[in-house]
């Protein structure tokens, strides 16, 4: 058992996560914040029983009110992440071609808290998305303008935009709880420790033990999902079939920030302004060199003659 975090003291203390701990801030620069221990949430799909306690804990802790939907032929309810459902158990019935045995793959979907967050990269609004030095990527509602660029930036299809509010929502890794020394609500609620939370290095070590256990049970491709394409993530999975993440309800095999977004938020951003500036500068330069193109007295005379039918 990974030792659960002790309950925090009830005496008020300064929050551990503040502007002093920022590593990145969308559409703006910040001085390198005070460094903190890298944290991570480890989701062990092989221990997960799909009970959805994490989902309800998330709804309750974050005071979210999701609609009561309908059954659409699956246990995945709601049917997708929404502005109120920041995490979702996704159920996949997969027949292992090697054994012909059915495997019911259950994956808790939600923000992966990338080390290189595509949402933050895409965000045009200063301070709407922040990354703390402990790895948490958080949306700051007050600064969010609801443009949906984060949706385009995210390699995992996580943020959802509220039409009513015009704000983006996603898992905050319970930054408010982490700020006072607690783990995320989902991890607290998980009955089987399929979700554990702690320093990222510890999580990796814990995962190693789990992978060893899985390999001993015949899952030869068991492994940790900590995709390097986004610089690693602060939400990691232990997968029985780490060679095929996509079987887990479309978990990307090798997620990267889309090159389209990279170009958009990289080259185009600078080249665009440069081009505009260049064209404007050329205008100034031209005017300075050539001077205005004036209509001369002769031109007017010629026109007059023409108008009067004299030429």
């Amino acid at each position: 058992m990974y030792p659960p975090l002790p309950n925090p003291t009830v005496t008020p203390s300064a929050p551990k996560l503040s502007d002093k701990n920022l590593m990145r801030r969308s559409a703006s620069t910040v001085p390198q914040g005070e460094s903190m221990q890298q944290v991570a949430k480890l989701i062990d799909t092989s221990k997960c029983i799909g009970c959805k306690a994490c989902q309800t804990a998330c709804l309750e802790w974050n005071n979210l009110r999701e609609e009561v939907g309908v059954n659409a032929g699956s246990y995945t309810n709601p049917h997708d992440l929404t502005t109120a459902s920041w995490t979702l158990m996704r159920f996949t019935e997969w027949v292992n071609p090697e054994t012909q045995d059915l495997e019911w793959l259950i994956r808790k979907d939600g923000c992966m808290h990338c080390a290189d967050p595509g949402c933050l990269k895409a965000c045009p609004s200063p301070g709407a998305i922040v990354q703390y030095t402990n790895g948490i990527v958080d949306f700051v509602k007050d600064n969010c303008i609801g443009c949906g660029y984060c949706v385009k930036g995210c390699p995992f299809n996580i943020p959802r935009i509220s039409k009513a509010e015009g704000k983006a929502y996603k898992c905050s890794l319970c930054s408010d709880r982490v700020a006072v020394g607690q783990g995320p609500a989902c991890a607290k609620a998980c009955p089987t420790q399929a979700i554990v939370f702690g320093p990222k290095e510890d999580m990796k070590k814990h995962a190693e033990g789990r992978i060893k256990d899985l390999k001993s049970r015949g899952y030869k491709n068991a492994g940790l999902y900590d995709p390097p394409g986004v610089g690693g993530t602060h939400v990691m999975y232990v997968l029985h079939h780490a060679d095929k993440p996509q079987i887990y309800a479309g978990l990307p095999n090798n997620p990267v920030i889309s090159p389209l977004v990279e170009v958009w938020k990289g080259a185009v951003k600078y080249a665009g302004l440069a081009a505009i500036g260049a064209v404007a500068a050329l205008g100034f330069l031209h005017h300075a060199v050539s001077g205005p193109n004036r209509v001369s007295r002769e031109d007017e005379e010629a026109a007059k003659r023409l108008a009067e039918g004299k030429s």
Partner: protein
Amino acid sequence: MADSEVAPGDGIHPGDPVKVDRYTAGARINHWITAASLVLLAISGLALFHPSLFFLTALFGGGSWTRVIHPWLGVILFFGFFGLFLRFWKLNLWKREDGTWMAKIRDVIAGHDENLPELGKYNAGQKMVFWSMSALILVLITSGIVIWDQYFGPYFTVTQKRVAVLVHAGAAVAAICVWIVHVYAAIWVRGTISAMTRGQVTGGWAWRHHRKWLRDLVTRH
């Protein structure tokens, strides 16, 4: 006259100087609506395009309002420009003398209009502004709809939207550049702006820059 350079509403008023009606009131209102929306679009778009320009959102009541207003401005621009297009497309068709004009681009830049062929209502530069704007606005409205999540979010995939934001940004940069050329040309070529303010230019201006148009006008009278 099949290939007359004269548009409805163009006219000539003898005098000193000669006054030439270049744009009707309708055309001018159409133009300025289009122009205003384009400028506002450029500002609001740039505000969301580059962090250093985000402060411009203040002009629109903040980031959220900027995000809300921008696409609607786009709709105005689209229909505004569509009006201009209907008015102007015919006289912007490419003519043989446009090639000659292009070949003498050095003279154009140097302001040696005397070395250039006689031109109709629009020169090749103006035509290129016209056609590139037409194309860019089409691209902008199309890509803009793909990323207008408020109403069209569910109809497009994330990949389509990513292509769209990129295309939208590129097209917008191009459109702004074209716009700069357009505005600069109007400033550089003195006497031009009155065409869109009062609807008139002087005969000399027409003689110097659009002699064929002037001739056609005279012939018509």
